[in-house]
């Protein structure tokens, strides 16, 4: 993909880097991938209120930033996301909330996160399905990985002057209303809407999906520690289920 940065290494390694900016970037991505799963999990696994879950999510990331939690992660024993979920279990079980909030200055938040938005979505997801808290954690994690990838695709296309390509991708693959209530637009519909040809739509969408796939793998590469874990997660996200 022209003009795209090279794939970055594991965030776990970046979190222990001497470069402050590198650490900050790694933390931002890690938080982007995990804050929704952690919030949802704390709410429904431990029956915490919205405010408590929001506080504990902040506590979790404060602990992640301060402690050597990630340095202790052993990829031979578990996936990173399983490890982090167990860290949440420990955090809630030990109920270190008060001490940590005090340490941060009486409940100061280290991350600016829109908990109100995720509150409604999480409650709806819980009502609609019979998913266990662990499954909800996994589902929210997958959603976060794909959401991060869409944001990166959008930013990179904006930087490289491919806004139309992102527009087509968004109209065909992202617009909820289009394909929850109506059939998806045909390539001809999109060609009329974007002032191009159906052949161009075909090519642009193929390129966008190819780039998107590459970015999903890039995000996964960052969120995993070993090749084996990366492959496992890639199969979980990109592989198909065996036929029944």
């Amino acid at each position, binding site marked *: 993909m022209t003009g795209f940065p090279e794939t970055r290494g594991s965030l776990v390694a970046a979190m222990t880097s001497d470069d402050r900016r590198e650490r900050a970037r790694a933390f931002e991505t890690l938080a982007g991938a995990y804050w929704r799963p952690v919030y949802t999990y704390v709410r429904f696994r431990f029956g915490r209120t919205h405010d408590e879950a929001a506080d504990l999510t902040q506590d979790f990331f404060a602990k992640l930033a301060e402690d050597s939690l990630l340095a202790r992660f052993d990829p031979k024993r578990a996936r990173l996301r399983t490890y982090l979920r167990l860290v949440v279990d420990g955090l809630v079980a030990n109920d270190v909330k008060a001490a940590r909030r005090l340490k941060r200055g009486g409940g100061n938040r280290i991350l600016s996160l829109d908990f109100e938005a995720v509150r409604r979505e999480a409650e709806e997801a819980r009502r609609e399905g019979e998913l266990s808290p662990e499954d909800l954690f996994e589902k929210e994690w*997958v959603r976060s990985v794909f959401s991060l990838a869409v944001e990166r695709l959008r930013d990179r296309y904006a930087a490289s002057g491919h806004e139309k390509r992102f527009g087509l991708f968004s109209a065909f693959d992202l617009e909820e209303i289009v394909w929850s209530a109506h059939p998806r637009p045909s390539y001809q519909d999109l060609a009329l809407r974007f002032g191009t040809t159906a052949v161009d739509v075909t090519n642009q969408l193929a390129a966008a999906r190819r780039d998107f*796939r590459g970015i999903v793998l890039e995000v996964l590469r960052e969120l995993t520690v070993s090749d084996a874990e*990366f*492959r496992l997660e890639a*199969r979980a*996200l990109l592989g198909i289920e*065996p036929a029944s």
Partner: protein
Amino acid sequence: MRLGDAALARLREAVRAPDLSGTPYRLVGPIGAGGMGAVFDVRDERLGRHVALKVVDVPLDGEAPAEELLREARVLAGLEHPGLVPVHDAGRLVDGRAFYAMKLVKGDRLDAHLARVPHLPERLRLFLRVCEPVAFAHAQGILHGDLKPSNVMVGSFGEVLVLDWGLARAFAAPGGETTARGAIGTPGFMAPEQFSGGAVDARADVFGLGALLDASLRVAPASPRPNALAAIVARATAEDRNGRYPDVASLAADVARLLDGERVEAHAEGAVERALRLLRRHRVAVGLVLAYLAVRGLFIFFRR
């Protein structure tokens, strides 16, 4: 940004699908997943036919799974036999994933098919047809390495195909050996020497076939297993490979003898067992003799 459920499902589908740009193939749908990749039903627009496209999961140049997939394609392409799926094409997709295209076979996996085959002789005849392509591959110096019911397909026209040659390896047949690639295979179907990563030869596949035969006989509705058949399974799956049949042909020959009512090599039968076997084998002749004797007896009786 937070994606909704519908958008998430759509994107997952989009990234799972192989990028077929620049190929003559058009995606029809997924078929299933194997050890290292997924298989899709695609239409070859050049020739107007459907083929199965096996694609490795993750597109990483130089990584082992891509090489393994292409190696599997080469192995299969080098083996032309009615019991093996022909390979049409191989290479890399624009998304970097390795692929190969092969004949699309419609049918059932052996274990599913056997549920509709209640009679023992029919099951044994199916087993003999599984042995054929394996013996053929051995003659070409190739071991399968992962023989099990789910790697055998019975097509809608009764064709029996041995699939998934992803763990196949070359060995210098006959009597040659190769080194097992670690404990790769399926527990329960993997020979002990293969499990331990030692040297393997044709007898590793004899073990796999014996385990496959054993599993085939257990599929419900299972019929009683004669002693001779139990002995064949035991010999094929012996812990020590020196105790097994030396090759697939010997195993198949013993099963064929059982089907024909002859004495099998793996089993030392007693006098009663032998008599019963001979009775079963020559039941027509025995029946005719008995009928003759009965008629003759009646004739003598009424002459008095």
